[in-house]
């Protein structure tokens, strides 16, 4: 079949994004399922400090210890919140974990030719965004954070409360994982398709008009980060290749992408209530813009 080249390129790019994210989504779904079946809810509640910002700091610190890719973190966070982890800590973890993991920070170091400053600034953005989100979410409870359909567990009860026996629990883990994978996976498919469309048809010269103005270059790269939906392990190399853009714009690209992109927006809208997913959109955008602008002005 003789297909238009643009369709073949779109299919290749979309398939590549999906395949790249698939292992992380599968791992996230499995982790979420293991939490659902084996972790008693009250144990998580006791771990988190009572203060709002302290809870946020706990969530950010957890991101350093339990790294997760942005494609797999949403089902994990949803399950943690259902299990009783205070949302302020869980949402701080949601935005920080995809950035402060060792692979991402190392790739940032390599892509920017050994610049520890870029690594530090990227981590700083994650920390500030996590704390800001914790402050915005405050002491909201589960039913104020998760959408109605996401609050009830798929089986209607906490598996940690009674013993079904080994086989039943094993089946429950795989079934929960399967349904989380399908539910989040459809947003991955949609996001991958949208990102592939932009990458196929967006004229490369379209951004060139913004590169000489600091504010516009930061905004342009932030927009590009959302549209291209590049994985956080690779986005530093993509950002570094925009040699005509200032460093502040590079920082904006790598700061925003792991927190807000086409794949994540759909997952957030499906999982969280409107105020929360709007916060997940607005807070990272503001923090990234302000930090990048400061870097651009001061450097």
């Amino acid at each position: 079949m003789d297909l238009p080249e643009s369709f073949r390129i779109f299919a290749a790019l979309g398939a590549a994004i999906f395949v790249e994210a698939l292992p992380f989504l599968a791992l996230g779904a499995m982790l979420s399922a293991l939490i659902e079946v084996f972790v008693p809810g009250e144990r998580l509640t006791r771990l988190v400090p009572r203060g709002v910002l302290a809870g946020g700091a706990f969530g950010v610190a957890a991101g350093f210890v339990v790294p997760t890719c942005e494609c797999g973190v949403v089902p994990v966070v949803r399950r943690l919140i259902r299990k009783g982890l205070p949302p302020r800590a869980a949402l701080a973890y949601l935005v920080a974990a995809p950035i402060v993991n060792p692979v991402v920070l190392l790739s940032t170091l390599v892509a920017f030719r050994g610049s520890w400053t870029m690594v530090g600034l990227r981590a700083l953005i994650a920390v500030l965004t996590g704390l800001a989100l914790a402050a915005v979410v405050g002491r909201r409870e589960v039913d104020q954070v998760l959408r109605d359909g996401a609050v009830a567990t798929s089986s209607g009860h906490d598996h940690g409360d009674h013993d079904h026996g080994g086989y039943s629990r094993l089946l429950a883990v795989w079934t929960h994982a399967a349904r989380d994978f399908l539910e989040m996976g459809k947003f991955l498919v949609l996001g991958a398709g949208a990102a592939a469309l932009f990458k196929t048809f967006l004229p490369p010269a379209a951004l060139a008009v913004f590169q000489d103005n600091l504010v516009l270059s930061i905004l342009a790269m932030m927009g590009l980060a959302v549209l291209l939906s590049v994985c956080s392990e690779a986005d530093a190399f993509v950002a570094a290749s925009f040699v005509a853009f200032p460093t502040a714009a590079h920082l904006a690209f790598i700061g925003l992408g792991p927190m807000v992109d086409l794949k994540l927006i759909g997952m957030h809208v499906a999982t969280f209530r409107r105020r929360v997913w709007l916060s997940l959109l607005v807070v990272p955008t503001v923090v990234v813009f302000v930090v990048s602008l400061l870097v651009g002005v001061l450097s």
Partner: protein
Amino acid sequence: MRSPRWPSIVESVLLLAVGLGVGAWALFGEYTLLMHPRYRWLTIAGAALVVPMGLAVLFARPRRVPLSTVVAFGALIAVVLVARPFAAGAGAGLAPFAPGDGAPLPGREGYEERSLVEIARALQADDETADGENRYAMAGIVARPDFLEEDDDYVLLAPFMACCLADAIAYGFRVRGADEPPPAEGEWIVVYGAIEALAAARPVDPFRFGVLRWITVDPGHAIRSDGYVPFSATLPTLRDRLAGEQTSRFLAELEAAGLATVLEGDGPFTVFAPIDAAFSAAEAPPPVGLHVVPGRYTKRDLYEIDRLGTYDGNTLEVEVVNGKVRVGGARILFSDPGLRNGVLHLVHPRLRGP
């Protein structure tokens, strides 16, 4: 355990299609068309998690499957089956990696092997690389975008893929110097030359080339070419490849028959080399020429063919048994299509003649 019902079957079909499809492609397919090879193990692990999910839902309490889920995954499967981005030749037309990627470039005295990506990054830090004195052997793809003012100039691109095709970028340099014959657009070549700073910067807008959607050309530097060779000249020959550990006995037979030197030439040939374990003292060996076929036939090509004419004038039967291709009754264990003068298939047992 409950009997599966249709929602569970739908979930299972979607998960198994994704898990088995991605897993099979990662294990046996052209993985580097879409992904960096270092992540192959990760893709296989991810697929290996999805397959049991697809089986588990058959034994769980059925739950309504949202139509949006069916539509999204169905669209993914449909687009992939129609466009076939996972298959060489049917994909987007440009694999980011050079054929034989990783092999050392053919040496030329006075020229240091250097990747264009390293050069581009070094130039961003300092300008010592562009002193015009140091000479390099640099591999890349030829592009001839419209903005080039001189007819003899072209752009040499070095693709770079950190994770997947969607993040592939390319660094490019103008190449100056009238290379004869001029390299064809899309050809992988190795250029020998020096990096020089341009008297006046010549910024150009980013452009696209095949699946490489964002290419920046260094505005302040260019390559002064002393000449080039096609990249295929850097690849090993069939004879080189047969000198490996598993085919020593077959190589010895080829040398005794005077065919080893043929496999050092331009070819192309397709060789079905029995591995050493396929040799048995109890069997009368078939003629060694039976294993050499003029022409280039990849494993994919063999699915479309019924018979092959061999170098010594015989015929080999090609058949597909349980979805796997067999040539002369032998199974293909491994294929290497990235050789300079042909394709090598390792087979077991030895081929069966007419």
